[in-house]
């Protein structure tokens, strides 16, 4: 294992992995700074570029890009009060007031350095978890692996919003989409309408691009503004922010651990991690009245948690094929494109690739934070770019990205159709992550179900592992209902008291 650990580090410094990681970092850098263009969307846009790449080069590019988005997202949040990323919203609460008070440099120093610490702790958690989960994953058979795919959908469905039914339906629709094309078992053509284009099934890339990029482009066009309307002066006090991180090292480490743990729970996502970490920062402070007015601890907590959750969310993704977040759900598609199957093989045959992922997070964040400190003043100015200048380039990327999948115009049509569906889903508040997860896991899920039924008939339903996962699923699905009921009761009690 130690050999794979160091091998993973060496791998990322080989050609073409390292230059690709640098390209990924540069893309992620800008994406993080630009509000309105999320990390998940950019992952979707960049996936077509990994066709033909070796797994390590592909992950160096994608993960290098994704792991720095959160880091630079804080820059926009602090300077303009506009979250560079949805996951950087909590940084605004105290970061932006610090900027207004003339402490923008200090806030940025604190956010960047705590982000680095968070990323390192998250990556360490991913590396440390491998020896622990390896025997567990290798002991799982097809019935348990099939149930895990359902568990992934259940987690994402239950935690992606107020309506579990919508989440589950969205996930099952994704599963259904995965059945389009020729059946692996019987060579039956399913839902193809006699179209040769559909014989190989629906491609993941145009669907992901349509579903995620089109609604964001529409939103950018509807807002019709430049990204940030406020100008700022020269940034000073960055080093003071770094010192703050060291001064409050206990909080930084605890917030990082919170982020890692939340990332580990499939479906929880970064939005949750940042707010829980912010809550902890407030709770653990002696003087709570400073929060919201520009307390540096309010920047350190979310900054660290945002980055540490990335390592955490990769643990279930790599080990079980159950993504910990929307981005890792899209990243799961990348596994399939480079012919890797998440699960047991990632912890045995491809262990070096898994360790490379750990190192990519570490190295990419070190490079990003160092570059951010050097170019901070210039970087922040990018947020003044008008939306109308970005949109044509986004359109270019979505069309070329979709077409490049199979060199078929059909992929563009699929991208447009799913773009409309994505727009309607956002408009009518249907969660999209379960759909994409269903599509990604559909093929695996069907194969595991087929093997289970062929080998054990219906007997597999009584296996202890299957029953345990089923109970976990039920718990995941009923939890939001219990929580909502509890919240209603509390609200009712509050109303009675007021009366």
């Amino acid at each position: 294992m130690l050999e794979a650990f160091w091998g993973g580090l060496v791998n990322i410094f080989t050609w073409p992995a390292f230059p690709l990681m640098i390209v990924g970092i540069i893309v992620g850098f800008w994406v993080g700074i630009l509000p309105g263009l999320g990390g998940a969307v950019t992952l979707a846009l960049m996936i077509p570029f990994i066709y033909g790449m070796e797994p390590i080069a592909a992950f160096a590019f994608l993960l290098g890009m994704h792991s720095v988005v959160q880091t630079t997202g804080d820059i926009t949040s602090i300077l303009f009060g506009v979250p560079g990323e949805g996951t950087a919203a909590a940084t605004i609460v105290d970061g932006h007031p610090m900027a207004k008070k003339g402490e923008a440099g200090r806030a940025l120093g604190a956010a960047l350095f705590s982000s680095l610490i968070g990323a390192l702790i998250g990556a360490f958690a991913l590396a440390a978890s491998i020896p622990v989960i390896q025997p567990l994953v290798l002991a799982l058979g097809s019935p348990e692996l099939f149930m895990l795919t359902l568990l992934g959908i259940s987690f994402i469905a239950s935690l992606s919003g107020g309506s579990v039914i919508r989440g589950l339906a969205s996930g099952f629709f994704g599963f259904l989409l995965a059945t389009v094309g020729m059946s692996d078992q019987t060579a039956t053509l399913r839902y193809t309408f006699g179209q040769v284009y559909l014989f190989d099934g629906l491609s993941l890339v145009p669907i992901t691009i349509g579903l995620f990029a089109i609604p964001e482009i529409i939103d950018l066009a509807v807002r019709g503004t430049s990204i940030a309307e406020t100008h700022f002066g020269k940034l000073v006090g960055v080093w003071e922010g770094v010192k703050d991180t060291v001064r409050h090292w206990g909080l930084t480490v605890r917030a990082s651990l919170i982020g890692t743990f939340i990332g580990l729970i499939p479906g929880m996502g970064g939005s949750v991690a940042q707010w829980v970490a912010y809550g902890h920062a407030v709770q653990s402070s002696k003087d709570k009245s400073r929060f919201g007015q520009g307390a540096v601890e309010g920047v350190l907590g979310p900054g660290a948690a945002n980055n540490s959750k990335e390592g955490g969310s990769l643990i279930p993704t790599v080990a079980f094929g159950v993504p910990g977040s929307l981005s890792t759900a899209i990243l799961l598609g990348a596994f399939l494109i480079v012919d890797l199957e998440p699960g047991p093989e990632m912890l045995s045959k491809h262990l070096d690739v898994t360790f490379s992922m750990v190192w990519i997070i570490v190295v990419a964040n070190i490079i990003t934070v160092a570059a951010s400190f050097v170019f901070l003043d210039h970087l922040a100015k990018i947020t003044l770019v008008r939306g109308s200048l970005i949109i044509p380039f986004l359109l270019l990327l979505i069309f070329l990205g979709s077409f490049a999948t199979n060199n078929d115009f059909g992929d563009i049509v699929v991208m447009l159709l799913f773009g409309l569906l994505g727009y309607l889903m956002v408009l009518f508040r249907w969660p999209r992550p379960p759909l994409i997860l269903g599509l990604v896991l559909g093929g695996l899920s069907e194969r595991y179900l087929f093997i289970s039924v062929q080998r054990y008939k219906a007997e597999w339903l009584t296996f202890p592992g299957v029953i345990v996962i089923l109970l976990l699923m039920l718990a995941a699905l009923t939890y939001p209902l219990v929580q909502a009921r509890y919240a209603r009761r509390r609200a009712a009690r509050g109303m009675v008291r007021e009366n």
Partner: protein
Amino acid sequence: MKTRFPTAFLSLLFAAVALWAVFAARDWPFSARLFPWMTAIPLMVLSLVQLVIDLRMSTGETTKVMDFQFSPGVETALARRRTLNILAWVFGFALWIWLLGFEIAIPLMVFLYLKLQGQEGWTLSAVLTVVAYVFFWGIFDRLLHLPMPEARLFMWTERLLGW
């Protein structure tokens, strides 16, 4: 009570798709229809339950979703107009690619969008158009050697003229 048909539209759509999926799979071998039925039947049931919930929900009531949400603060009529506008650009671009091919559609779309929609200056529009074309040509043509689709308009013209 007002009904909320627009919100219920997706529930209805998913239920209809699931019903059709179950029906279309009825004659397939067991192994081929096992997974489609295992997914389409729950999808149909869940969508119908959601449809009832949607139709009974009072107008203005919304569901919280942990996913991207459209930015608030833009007046509804303006938002609708801008949405239709950007959709027209998106679908128009697809049509241009189909008719003219990527090589012509890309500079045309980038330039027209910047000039007409973004109301940018001639120089900036021209420079960014060149940047977009060089990006396309450098990465997708020279680096990835992506075979581009033939422009339909030119194909038809060639056929018409008998070339």
